[in-house]
């Protein structure tokens, strides 16, 4: 029968550096290929809507005629299936997550560069 088995661990924890990340003060360092959010680069996009069809959560909408690409950030599950599906490689994954929101919106990227609007 044992006694005070945890002492060693407890004492070591007392004298070692804290394990806690001081998060809001110290920024989080992301791993290079962490899946955080989808980045859309419109320069090469041919609006084939393959990404929208491959999305398991139906978060992406593509309008071929109006040449808009939109994503519901509150619906995207970061599986990066659209990134794999894109034939022109204009989608990629960024490591940071979408910041917290107070209302759900839809982000639309239009064709004309100076007309880009973030709703």
């Amino acid at each position, binding site marked *: *029968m*044992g*006694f005070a*088995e*945890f002492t*060693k*661990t*407890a004492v*070591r*924890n007392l004298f070692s550096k804290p*394990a806690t990340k001081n998060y809001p003060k110290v920024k989080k360092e992301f*791993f290079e*290929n*962490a*899946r955080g959010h989808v980045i859309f680069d419109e320069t090469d996009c041919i609006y084939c809507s393959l990404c929208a069809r*491959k*999305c*398991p959560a139906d978060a992406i909408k593509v309008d071929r005629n109006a040449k808009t690409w939109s994503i519901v950030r509150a619906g995207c*599950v*970061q*599986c*990066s*299936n659209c990134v*794999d599906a894109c034939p022109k490689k204009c989608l990629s*994954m960024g490591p940071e997550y979408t910041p917290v929101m107070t209302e759900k919106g839809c982000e639309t990227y239009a064709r004309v560069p100076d007309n880009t609007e973030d709703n």
Partner: protein
Amino acid sequence: MSRRSIVPFGPQHPVLPEPIHLDLVLEDERVVEAIPSIGFVHRGLEKLVEKREYTEYVYVAERICGICSFQHGSGYCQAVEAIMNVEIPPRAEFLRTIWAELSRMHSHLLWLGLLADAFGFESLFMQCWRLRERVLDIFEMTTGGRVIFSVCKVGGVRRDISSDDMKRIITVLDTIVADLKDFERVFFDNNTVKSRLCGVGVLSKEKILELGAVGPVARGSGIKLDMRKLGYAAYDKIPQVEPIIETAGDCYARCLVRLRELYQSVEIIKAAASTMPEGEISVKVTGNPNGEFFSRVEQPRGEASYYVRGNGTKFLERFRVRTPTFANLGALLATLPGCDLADVPMLVLTIDPCISCTER
């Protein structure tokens, strides 16, 4: 004459991590009967298979449960691959094995922590979860996700582990083993821990066979039941896969099984890393599945079986998953009558319930 009363337990309860409702019929402080009612987490994702293409459904299958998500994904992929006669590259098989064993480690560390919390050892809970974070860091480094990995696909895996990363993983695993060695004695021979666990919730070998329990619950009662022995993925190429059994059948035995499996998982990962061949990680899959298959995988909680039926279109006809907790719920209900009310949270925990798996 003792008085009968009914205590409702859950769905929102401080000691319950997940919503399940139990009506506990008590005689004074002793439980005489437990009536479960489930359905709080039922989503109906098996029906979703008719609306999603079979290649996309992997991402839904993964989200059956966030703790054993990798095994759910790979179990589904295995079934579809078997229907379509797809031979996945050997490197993908080894990568699947490595990720599966890492998820087992993360799940068991999580469970040991929750158990420590249930018997009131707060600092042990914190220590276990602190170790677990290192496993999660490995996941984020290799797969990109901390909990849901999305690396399994029909025809292989989506990401590779470079040899540098593999070396780093082995060093991290060594530090985990070193730290675990420090406090494993708390589980093995601490007086307070033993007094809470020994002789509580005893299930005999015959009872387990009768109830059809699986996984660590069955292995804790001395039944050699481990689906890894079927040799799916790369388990047939690794000699370390031997089911770990204890014979006492109480909470303590189930705890020891899981603790020893942690070390076994490290051994398996090391063996897989040293024998992993180079090469492709996925093959292109064309056509649609037509036929049916049952695949079985060993999850951290026990055996899970997946039934997939395709009809030649890109939408599957039927998907069915039998999860380990569903099989173990019978064992839980068998242990509850006769125990004290204060032991209920711990008995619920020792079968390692995963309600979202069970209800899908």
